[in-house]
């Protein structure tokens, strides 16, 4: 294999010339590599974006909890103070504070508009709890809250944080799986093209075997050709994919919730890894196909 790689890098014009220069497999290989890399750029963008999303959701929610307090209006402030006092003495709670009416209004603004009379509505009081390190005992805190303020409910976001993080994680996995499938499909297509090319050039192979050419020499001509085609096709596909991703609308500006299906920072460099990878896939696929096919020739 190392010899084959060095032969690939070192142009052997004589070996390159023994195979007729053109054929339908030429454009097929280049096109396949280009199209697959184009798709791969999007799968990569999806995967990286999902990763960012999962991290963002986990980080944003992992260390916070909310206490929702429902109580008669005359008891509300009293129980709020009691809960805050309780939280101040609870090990594992870094800080806590009750959300102001203004903050509550902002939370409800997307549903009820900016002029909501919060004071007149029986909405629960929200208390934000920031967890320390190590964290607090959730079950113990719930029991103490029940004793101090029966209408208080601790919501540590686990209920919906976990499925969201899991969904984002699976989306990321799906992205990598798609990249793997795209790579495998490209390998299969190139193998088929290499086999077709070897069959179409059976006469050339027979002549070369007759005059004493080793399999490695014959394979080299095919491998080098297919690898270079895959490399060039993939480079075009990667460039097109990058342009496509760059032209996608930025979802952050729209809502701030989704991160946008694009690359950030050094992530833009990832697509440049794809052409060499495509070349490597083509190299391995063509070499295997060639060496297997050549055994059919005596």
């Amino acid at each position, binding site marked *: 294999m190392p010899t084959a790689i060095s032969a690939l890098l070192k142009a052997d014009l004589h070996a390159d010339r023994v195979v007729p220069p053109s054929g339908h497999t030429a454009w097929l290989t280049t096109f396949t590599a280009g199209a697959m890399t184009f798709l791969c750029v999007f799968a990569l963008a999806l995967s990286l974006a999902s990763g960012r999303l999962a991290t963002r959701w986990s980080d944003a929610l992992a260390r916070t909890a909310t206490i929702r307090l429902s109580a008669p209006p005359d008891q509300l402030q009293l129980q709020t103070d009691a809960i805050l006092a309780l939280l101040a003495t609870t090990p594992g709670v870094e800080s806590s504070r009750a959300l102001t009416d203004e903050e509550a209004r902002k939370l409800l603004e997307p549903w009820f508009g900016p002029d909501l009379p919060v004071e007149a509505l029986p909405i629960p009081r929200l208390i934000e709890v920031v967890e320390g390190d190590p964290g607090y005992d959730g079950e113990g805190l719930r029991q103490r809250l029940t004793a101090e303020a029966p209408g208080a409910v601790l919501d540590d976001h686990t209920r919906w944080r976990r499925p969201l993080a899991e969904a984002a994680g699976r989306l990321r996995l799906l992205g990598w799986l798609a990249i793997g499938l795209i790579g495998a499909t490209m390998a299969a297509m190139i193998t088929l093209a290499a086999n077709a090319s070897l069959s179409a050039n059976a006469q050339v192979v027979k*002549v070369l075997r007759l005059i004493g*050419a080793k399999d490695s*020499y014959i394979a080299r001509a095919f491998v080098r050709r297919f690898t270079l085609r895959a490399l060039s096709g993939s480079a075009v596909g990667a460039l097109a994919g990058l342009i496509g991703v760059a032209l996608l609308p930025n979802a952050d500006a729209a809502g701030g919730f989704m991160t946008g299906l694009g690359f950030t920072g050094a992530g833009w460099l990832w697509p440049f890894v794809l052409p060499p990878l495509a070349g490597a896939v083509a190299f391995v696929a063509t070499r295997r196909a060639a060496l297997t096919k050549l055994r059919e020739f005596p």
Partner: protein
Amino acid sequence: MIAFENVAYNYGGGELLSEVSLRLAPGSFHFLTGPSGAGKTTFLKLAYAELLPTAGHVTIFDREVHGLNRDDIARTRRRIGVVHQDVQFLDHLPLAANVQLPLTVSGKTGDSRDLGDLLGWVGLGHLADALPPSLSGGERQRAALARAIIMGPDVILADEPTGNVDWEMSLRLLTLLVELNRMGKTIVVATHDLNLIRQAKAQVPARVLRISKRRIQLAGADL
């Protein structure tokens, strides 16, 4: 050089060659005769390891063919020049590149003057840049002979080399083969052209092997 010991070859539909034992001595000249389908081509293919015997042993340059891997076979073929009746070339390469191909695939660089001399020797010097499809039958056979000997092989195997050419060209090819034999090359020519054999025997001490009823016999002196 090349030895057959109780060799048999079975195509699957029956035995084509059976109990073949002979030794091709260095510098010898053999004709191989027999009716069509008798097994002349099969014999030659066994001699350059395109086919492996189904029984017995074929030894090429002191190595039993069953013990050769594909690279060994390739290296062995560089020492054996083969000329077929339906000779094939790489049609996209000019004649000179085709003739030089054995040197190319073995990683050797040929001297362009030597190549020119060789093409001149077979009478194709003026066609060095021609593409194979433009060559006549006789030109193709001479080009095949040039390709077969460019590596300086020890053995030359020719399968009906005069099958597609006229009598004049046949004599010209025979002359080339006789000259090669005088240079010390071992020659085996499969042919059913008895006139050609008579012409050769007048020039070199050629032996005639006849394939008959799956076996190879030394033919009589009446040829």
